[in-house]
């Protein structure tokens, strides 16, 4: 007896420690996330209704795996827990909210979208497991908006080998635009090389001769961004290049080096937490360069909240809005601050109806925007689509949805957004400065003003079928 008691205590301690360690990595940002969005609150019947365009001629069949006469099942891997969960865990529920809206208003040619997204905790090993579950066991029609560069790279080859449409990856890595290796894979958001070029162009024009410093995440995201910046900004102007790894929050040496090099403008390709740390470390050192921050690291609501939270931990009280004031960034979709925009209005209405518990921020707009593009693609794929029909539909090009510039899709180009505008954060919202600029991800491609008009959200809130 004595023996078993002696053993029990350390054994329990080890297991409890393990459970705590796993639990500590969970999301805690009050984000709401459900794993499936099946039926909708308002429509109970699962019988097919007529399509919005009223042209339901052919009978609905089970035309592909994941498609039945009444449903389209798609899957995704998302960081619902773990280090990337704060903020990003809002994206999939927002997409599910938009699908619920579509399902309640006739669905896609009468079919309802079943969106099954599984937690991968931003760990590539888990990603490869959950995506195989979705494809091999749950027989999803497509993988939609899988989030993260390292995580999605773990499954891109598998999905392409299995000929599963791998649409609208939630990452700006230029690697998704590779039609030779990944014919089934499509990017969606503005890639970081294009973004770097557009931000670099603004710096070249408005801060000529000033000393520029780079602050970037030491991975594909940061390095692609720097690549774009270097295509445009003269090498002689860049006085310091500092990188960080997201697992080490001590960035003081990097900020000190930027200050020592006399940087007057600092360009940051960083995630929100590290943009906030950059700002606070600069304040501490009495260093106040002009900050230029990539889109993913500059959502004013997220950033302001982080600045206030971090300062509070350090015993100080700051105003998030005051600290983000004047940060230069870029935007390529609808923004929370632009309340008169037809897309923002539509997505706010859908959010308030189906996902009201989540905060209405850039992540929600992102999730709804990408869901809109998917619905658009499914309408174009036809009434009884095969998997190849969806890929063909996207290869044929798609309308830009809530983006300010066209989508690049063609048979030889699987990048998404092609352009953005420069914005300045003013009182907690991004104010557009100047025109929308479009470019390509090459070293020599020109950066030109977009002359087309922005699209308006359809009154019904649902893309029309072609």
């Amino acid at each position: 007896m004595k023996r078993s008691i002696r053993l029990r205590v350390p054994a329990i301690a080890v297991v409890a420690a393990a459970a705590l360690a796993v639990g500590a990595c969970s999301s805690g940002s009050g984000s709401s996330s459900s794993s499936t969005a099946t039926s909708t609150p308002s429509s109970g019947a699962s019988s097919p209704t007529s399509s919005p365009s009223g042209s339901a001629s052919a009978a609905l069949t089970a035309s592909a795996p994941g498609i039945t006469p009444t449903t389209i099942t798609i899957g995704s891997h998302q960081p619902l827990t773990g280090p990337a969960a704060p903020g990003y865990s809002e994206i999939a529920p927002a997409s599910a909210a938009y699908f619920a809206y579509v399902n309640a208003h006739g669905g896609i040619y009468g079919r309802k979208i079943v969106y099954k997204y599984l937690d991968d905790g931003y760990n590539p090993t888990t990603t490869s497991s959950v995506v195989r579950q979705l494809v091999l066991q749950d027989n999803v029609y497509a993988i939609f908006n899988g989030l993260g560069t390292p995580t999605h790279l773990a499954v891109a080859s598998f999905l392409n080998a299995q000929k599963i449409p791998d649409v609208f990856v939630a990452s700006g890595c230029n690697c998704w635009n590779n039609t030779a290796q990944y014919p089934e894979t499509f990017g969606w958001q503005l890639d970081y090389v294009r973004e770097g070029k557009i931000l670099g162009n603004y710096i070249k024009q408005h801060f000529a001769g000033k000393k520029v410093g780079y602050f970037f995440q030491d991975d594909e995201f940061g390095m692609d961004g720097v690549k774009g910046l270097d295509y445009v900004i003269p090498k002689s102007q860049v006085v310091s290049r500092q990188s960080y790894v997201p697992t080490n929050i001590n960035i003081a040496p990097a900020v000190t080096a930027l200050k020592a090099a006399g940087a007057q403008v600092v360009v940051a390709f960083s995630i929100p937490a590290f943009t906030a740390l950059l700002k606070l470390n600069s304040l501490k050192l009495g260093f106040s360069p002009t900050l230029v921050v990539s889109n993913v690291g500059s959502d004013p609501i997220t950033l302001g909240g982080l600045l206030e939270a971090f300062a509070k931990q350090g015993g100080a009280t700051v105003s998030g809005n005051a600290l983000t004031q004047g940060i230069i960034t870029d935007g390529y979709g609808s923004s929370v601050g632009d309340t008169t925009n037809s897309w923002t209005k539509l997505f706010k209405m859908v959010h308030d109806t189906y996902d009201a518990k989540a905060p209405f921020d850039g992540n929600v707009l992102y999730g709804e925007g990408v869901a809109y593009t998917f619905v658009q693609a499914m309408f174009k794929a036809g009434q009884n689509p095969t998997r190849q029909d969806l890929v063909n539909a996207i290869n044929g090009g798609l309308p830009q949805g809530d983006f300010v510039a066209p989508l690049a899709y063609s048979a030889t180009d699987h990048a998404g957004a092609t352009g953005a505008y420069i914005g300045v954060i003013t009182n907690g919202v991004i104010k557009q400065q100047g025109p929308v600029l479009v470019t390509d991800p090459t070293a020599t491609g020109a950066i030109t003003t977009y002359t087309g008009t922005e699209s308006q959200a359809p009154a019904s809130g649902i893309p029309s079928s072609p």
Partner: protein
Amino acid sequence: MNTRSTPRVLAAALATAVVVAILSIKLNAFRDFQIAEIAIYVTAVAGLTLLTGLSGQISLGNGAFMAIGAYTTALLMLHLNWPFLGVLVIAGAVTALAGAVVGVAAARLHGPYLAGATLLLGVALPNIAFAWPGVFGADQGLNVVYTAPGFLGVNFPLTRWQAWVCSAVALIVLVLLANLGRSRIGRNWRAVRDNEVAAALAGVNVAVARVRAFVVSATCAGLAGALLAAVTGLVAPGAFTITLSIALLTAAVIGGLGTLPGAVWGSLLIVLVPTYATDVATSHGLSSSVASNIPVAAYGVVLILVMLVFPQGIQGGVRWLLGLFGMTSAKKTQMKEGTQ
């Protein structure tokens, strides 16, 4: 375990191989993938359970050894196009070497100090990938392409082949470890674990015994890492976080420290429980913020319950049950295992 003779171990391994082969054909492709995953964990956990259970050392860094095996595999397959069998051998050898280096330091440390040192290894080593992005691909990692051999035909499911390869490696490792545990080396480990001074007085070289245990556990982790690279197709630092090292130790403890069948129970548990918990959470339409955290919570609750009910791990529980039904050989084993 130590009362089993070699023929019995071989018979058990063969029987398991037959069961796995039948399961891999009967079940769907995703279950095949899970069989491969379980076999990978079994390979790594078996080494760790011997280290902790028999030689009395702890390691919170075996995830790092898996990373070494995985990166070795990726680099050899990418640059030299080696066949997988050769890669597997080299991956094991490279990790054995790393294990020897760490083991020399570890042999001088005890208890929390050893845990701390190996924890450092587990946290720090995967970050080397960021130091040489050109070689290790940084955050993005390295891609590994491993396909089923041509003679099986083009329509042979890849996941079934992966299940076979991983299970074969796991079973071979289990048979070898079972033998090792019963050999002079294994007896020395137990002697060192129970009383270092007495073992030294009896002529056991304590330091050598401890380093050996580390090398064996590291080699198993390296083989598991190589298999993981081949099965998931990507080697990236995000796959080898400290959580992995802790998961391995959890599996060893929960299955029953020092017992090889325990390594199998533990691996089954840590692979299957999160999947089932996710299925339950998603099929009951639970409210928003709850559902995504349920698998994590359920996993923790299961671990705590198993430890409360079976303080000696699942294998301890199995033995107790067998004992209840009068299976004397099991009873004898339990008594002979003594302090375990």
